């Protein structure tokens, strides 16, 4: 029952908050209630359920990995929903927003608890297409453009996903997602199927080179929507990957290396482009790309073999948990500086700072812990260049710190209200902060096996207070802080002239190259395309030829004169004799 409520309540919430005035007024509360089953499932142990009559026969169940993500998702949707309830209460189209929000929520929960391919795909699509409504919500030209790019990419992603699912289900011979990784490990075309999935879900994850819609779409949505987009929905792609990745079963060295390479490229490259942005939300979007790059890389590490999935995947999930809560915190935070005044601002800045640190992996934060876990795996792998990648990991920490400092800087420039006031949506924000911090750092979500694998004999408390670990977390932060201070001190033109109005690189950087290339291709093929268009717009069909003959004047003329000839007595006589002779000939 609870399993159905997980998806059913958000759908009901969507309808109720969209169409019922009372529901519209209390949408925040309703969304909290709607996400309670998901949170509950994320924390409790459920055995799963099979619903024969739903879609193509639905199975719901959870494993530790997805339980972590579900908890994350539940928390994010709940807090963002509450946030949105008051944040958007003056918005004329709040009802619409709630509708898409609820639908996307249901999709997001559903895909996490789905254990079979069809329902997974169903909820994935529901989430993807419902969040289109979130992206386009503001209706501004830039939002429309972002939404269009989002939609195109989403459809491309769906196509890859469905083809990957077709092949995977066929080779697994079962609809259960759990059967896919072993089947891929066995199948001769397993790596091909995995690559299809990689591309398909890569769109959602924002992996290189499919990320360019992300810096457009995530910032275009209202803050609570951005929070779930970047915090929760982006993780759906990761979950998709996890369903396909036969971790611990194969040793796909080249795919592994490719993923690690691309992951780190994203982790570092996104930082550079993100630094050139002027919109805090775009900045965050690039940060998301960067962070997802790291997760990509660690999943890639798993494909190199030697690491059991039961250990690696929860670790990645926890990393995602940390990133998700913190990123959502920051995204929601973008709405705060303009609204929060007076003493409350201290709390706000503290929260934002914590969020930044958590993502950058600062000392005493969940970020440190999650990053450490993954580092353990990287350290123990036999992937070529593992040491180099470890170094890059540290660089990425510096990069992230820089990027998020820039984010704070951008927020800082927003004019604060003069009065000492606090909006209602400050509460969910704080709740999120607490919940995120608590569950990232508590060992409750992880298995004892994993804990001991990472930490050995020592407990997590020891880990956090161990100077060495803190130092390893601290030095990238210190380097960042140092370089920032240096930049200020030197009053380098570099910092002052760092773009404030227009981004150095337009959001969605890579998109423009694609569009340019596409434009050139179109121009090159213009003649062909216009030909195709005129061909397709005109009507061609078989009857044209037929009518051409039938309706032609000459046809009529010839036929009539032939018949007039046949009516003449002479011709009849000739016919008589010909007939006579032929019959005579035939009868002889």
């Amino acid at each position, binding site marked *: 029952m609870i399993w159905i409520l997980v998806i059913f309540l958000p759908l009901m919430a969507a309808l109720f908050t969209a169409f019922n005035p009372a529901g519209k007024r209390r949408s925040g509360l309703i969304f909290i209630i709607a996400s309670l089953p998901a949170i509950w499932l994320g924390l409790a142990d459920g055995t799963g359920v099979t619903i024969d009559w739903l879609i193509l*026969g639905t199975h719901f169940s959870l494993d530790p990995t997805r339980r972590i993500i579900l908890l994350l998702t539940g928390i994010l949707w709940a807090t963002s929903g509450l946030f949105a309830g008051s944040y958007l209460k003056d918005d004329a189209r709040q009802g619409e927003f709630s509708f898409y929000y609820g639908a996307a929520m249901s999709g997001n929960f559903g895909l996490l608890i789905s254990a079979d391919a069809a*329902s997974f795909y169903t909820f994935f699509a529901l989430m993807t*297409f419902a969040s289109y409504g979130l992206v386009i919500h503001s209706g501004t030209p830039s939002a429309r453009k972002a939404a269009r790019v989002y939609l195109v990419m989403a459809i491309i992603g769906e196509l890859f996903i*469905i*083809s990957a699912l077709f092949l995977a289900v066929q080779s697994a011979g079962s609809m259960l997602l759990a059967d896919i990784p072993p089947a891929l490990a066995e199948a001769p075309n397993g790596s091909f199927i995995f690559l299809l999935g990689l591309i398909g879900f890569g769109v959602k994850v924002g992996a290189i080179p499919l990320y360019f819609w992300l810096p457009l779409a995530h910032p275009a949505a209202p803050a609570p929507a951005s929070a779930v987009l970047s915090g929760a929905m982006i993780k759906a792609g990761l979950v998709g990957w996890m369903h396909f990745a036969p971790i611990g079963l194969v040793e796909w060295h080249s795919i592994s290396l490719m993923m690690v390479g691309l992951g780190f490229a994203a982790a570092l490259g996104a930082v550079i482009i993100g630094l050139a942005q002027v919109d805090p939300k775009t900045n965050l979007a690039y940060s998301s790309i960067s962070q997802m790059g790291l997760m990509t890389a660690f999943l890639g590490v798993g494909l190199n073999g030697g690491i059991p999935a039961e250990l690696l995947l929860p670790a990645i999930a926890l990393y995602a948990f940390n990133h998700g809560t913190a990123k959502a915190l920051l995204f929601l935070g973008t709405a705060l500086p303009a609204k929060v005044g007076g003493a409350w601002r201290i709390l706000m800045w503290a929260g934002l700072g914590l969020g930044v640190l958590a993502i950058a992996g600062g000392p005493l934060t969940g970020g440190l812990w999650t990053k450490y876990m993954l580092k353990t795996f990287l350290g123990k792998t036999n992937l070529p260049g593992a040491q180099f990648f470890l170094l890059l990991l540290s660089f990425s920490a510096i990069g992230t710190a820089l990027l998020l400092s820039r984010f704070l800087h951008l927020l800082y420039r927003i004019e604060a209200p003069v009065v000492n006031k606090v909006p209602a949506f400050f509460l969910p924000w704080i709740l999120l902060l607490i919940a995120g911090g608590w569950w990232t750092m508590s060992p409750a979500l992880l298995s004892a096996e994993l804990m001991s694998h990472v930490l050995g004999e020592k407990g997590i408390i020891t880990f956090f207070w161990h100077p060495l670990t803190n130092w390893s977390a601290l030095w990238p932060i210190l380097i960042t802080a140092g370089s920032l201070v240096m930049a200020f001190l030197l009053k380098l033109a570099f910092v002052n002239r760092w773009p404030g109005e227009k981004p150095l690189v337009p959001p969605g950087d890579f998109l423009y190259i694609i569009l340019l290339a596409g434009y050139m291709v179109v121009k090159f093929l213009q003649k062909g395309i216009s030909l195709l268009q005129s061909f397709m717009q005109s*009507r061609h*069909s078989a009857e044209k030829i037929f009518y051409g003959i039938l309706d032609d004047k000459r046809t009529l003329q010839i036929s009539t004169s032939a018949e007039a000839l046949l009516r003449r007595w002479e011709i009849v006589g000739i016919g008589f004799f010909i007939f006579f002779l032929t019959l005579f000939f035939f009868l002889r």
Partner: protein
Amino acid sequence: MEMNSLLLILILFSSLVPGILILLLHERQVFMRSFLNLLGAVVKVGLVAWVFAGYYSGEEYVFIFGLAPDLTFALQVDHLGLLFAALSAVLWLVTTIYAIGYLEGGKHLRRFFAFFSLCVTASTGIALSGNVVTFFVFYEFLTLSTYPLVVHRGDDIAVEAGRTYLWYTIGGGTVLFLGVVGLFVVAGPVYFGQTEIIANLVAENELQLTILFFIMLTGLAVKAAIFPFHGWLPIAMVAPAPVSALLHAVAVVKAGAFGIVRLVYDVYGIDTSEQMNLLTPLAVFAAFTIIYGSLKALFQDDFKKVLAYSTISQLSYIALGVAITGVLSTTGAVVHLVHQGIMKITMFFAAGNVAETYGYKKISQLNGIGRRMPLTMGAFTIAAFGMIGLPPIAGFVSKWYLGLGAIEAESYWVVLVLLASSAMNAAYFLPIVYRAWFCEEGHEMVHRRRPGRFETPALLLIPVVLTGLFSLAAGVFAASANSPLSIAREIAERLYLYLP
């Protein structure tokens, strides 16, 4: 006569008799006409449900009437026929309601509703026909009974369209006739399901059987609008919306598709068809039609034209599924027979509602229509998503099975065709959805008043909402017992029981 045979006749009569009675009514007897129509439709649904229940509890339904010593008129019930009959009956009821609302106050309604009923009689007859000859009889009857509907508007465009419609369908019927007689001569009276007859003849008459197969296929392809015989379909769009809806969803095109299904599965049999290599050309033509129809739809601005070309494309899914061997693709083909029907009828209802309420027929005029007509466009959106193949809507289920079937048969190119078609479906349906929901209303639109209590008259609104819900439910509850999918799966499994 036995009760069960009588039931089959009653199913046919439940629309035939109202049709004839309506013809005898006076034009102004609106209430009586509507009453007869609805009564017939409800009775038909009830009877089909009765037969449905009976068939699943082991009853047999056969009606045989000898025309000539070897020429028999036979009705029988099997899973496939029952599925199609149920589809016809239910959608007829819905469309009747819609038509009553849509054509209110129009001219020549007596004629319209009479032929409307006859058309459904033909469609049900096709579903229930037990042998090739009976099928052919109803197939031609369908052509005739739809003609007055196509030209109903009665202006020159409609009449010209009717001309083209007839040339195509009569031509197709004639070709089919040739094939049916030829089959009769070669194989005798073939009842559906007796595939062993053909199988036993293959050794001796392979050439004749091959030629006959393609002759019959050509005849059926005309109604199924497979390229290059699709030309009549976009033209027949001049008909009133309920007619287009019925034509595209259950009656004409579906008769062709259903015929192809019957031909391959119940006349020639799958193993025979495959052994004789008959299916590859069908697959190629179907695949080409899918792509071609989608491409054409992509470049249209007329709402109904888009839907028409989309029908051409979608219908060939069925043919494609038939052409691929395997339980999964067969399931996909059969279930798409139903799913395409309910989704397409929803779209036509929606297009009709928009045109009837606001007079908009072009896609470029649809900006913001979703706010004005949320239920109509909501149903349309569901159907459009289904057409694209998005879960959990009916279209997804068909596509899922077709795709899996193609992979099972190792026809990977078919998967590519399906995906390309999905992409193109998205490319022409999503702009409509986008305009409806996310664009601002045009200037003249803002000042328009809403037509009444609802967004559009209730008789127009109820059907579209119903079929929209059907499309959704067929997908969401696909795995439940007695859903179209489960019946289709059962059909497929029965068919392949004979395969090694």
